[in-house]
């Protein structure tokens, strides 16, 4: 007698519409409001983060089992007699763990592990019997990932910040150099004028 166990497990895990908000940092200040002036300040922050994870896994578990009973016969007994049947049993168990990791906006593809080899049963004895069918189990265990953080919705800059050194010592030194150059230049000019005049 043959028993065929085919376990097909399909699970679809969907995560959608997960949103995250980021603390707004915009602010505005209204000042110098004169008579009859109209002032308005509008700050709008929109943050959207959508995470969709669609994971599918398939596990196929096949167990072939066979248990054949022995034969029993009674014959030629004068006072009768009896033949009692034995029993033939099979058993097996299969546990398959599937782990799916959902991370951010990226679907992490996880290959399900190969089905575990079933534990074979044993049959025999005399008389009729039937094998016990096998049992398959699939236990998906999704592991939570992490939601994505949305970028602030601001005007796209066209320049990186200008972080050049602006030390006061440098500026002062530059001004002093310019002043010195002006003094030297004026003295040359005065000297040249005096020579021409004389």
């Amino acid at each position: 007698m043959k028993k065929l166990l085919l376990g097909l497990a399909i699970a679809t895990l969907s995560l959608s519409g997960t949103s995250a908000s980021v603390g707004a940092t915009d602010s505005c200040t209204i000042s110098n409001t004169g008579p009859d002036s109209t002032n308005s300040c509008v700050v709008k922050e929109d943050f959207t983060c959508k995470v969709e994870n669609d994971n599918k896994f398939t596990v196929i578990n096949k167990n072939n089992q066979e248990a054949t009973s022995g034969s029993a016969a009674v014959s030629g007994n004068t006072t009768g007699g009896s033949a009692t049947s034995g029993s033939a049993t099979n058993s097996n168990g299969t546990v398959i763990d599937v782990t799916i990791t959902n991370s951010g906006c990226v679907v992490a593809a996880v290959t399900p592990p190969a089905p575990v080899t079933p534990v074979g049963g044993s049959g025999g004895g005399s008389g009729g019997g039937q094998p016990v069918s096998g049992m398959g189990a699939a236990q998906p265990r999704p592991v939570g990932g992490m939601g994505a953080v949305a970028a602030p919705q601001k005007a796209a800059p066209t320049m990186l910040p200008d972080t050049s050194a602006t030390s006061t010592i440098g500026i002062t030194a530059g001004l002093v150099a310019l002043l010195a150059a002006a003094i030297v230049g004026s003295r040359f000019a005065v000297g040249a004028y005096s020579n021409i005049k004389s």
Partner: protein
Amino acid sequence: MSKSTDSKAQFYGLVGLLNIAVGVMFYTINITPTPVLANSAPHIQSTVIKPAPATQGLPVRVVIPSLSLDLPVAVGTYNTDDGSWTVDNTKAYYADVSMPINNANGTTLIYGHAQATIFETLPQIQPQADVIVYTDNGYAFHYTYTTVQEVAPTDVSVFTSNGPPKLVLQTCVGAYSERRALYSFRLVAIDAL
């Protein structure tokens, strides 16, 4: 009915009863074993766990122990009219168009002048150097230095990179501060203060 006929009827009745008794006896002896059938249906369990929310915050302080740097961080904004950014000589700034400090994705840009009190010593940083950024909501994000890249002031791709969580510190380099040096740091740990 004659007497012999009655005797025959009694005899066949007894034989019939005997046959029934023998049949019951053999039936009792030859019991077919009852097969034991286990549960053959595959057992499926599934659980859906939603992604955990990311930890994030706005940077308020940056510390680089190996350079003895400990600076406050303010929010720096971009002026679309003249293309300038908020910057001064007293602190570092977080570019508010970049990602907030977080452990999920994207690049956070903190910038500061290349002068002694701010980021002048950044070029001296060594590989694997630690940087700690404290956030306004009580977290300390620990980063480690990975690479430096010099780019033109017009290269704003740092604002659109959306890979693993990363910190970039920016200051100016070059004889005339004409280029921007971007120091990249990889997130390694978070502490809740």
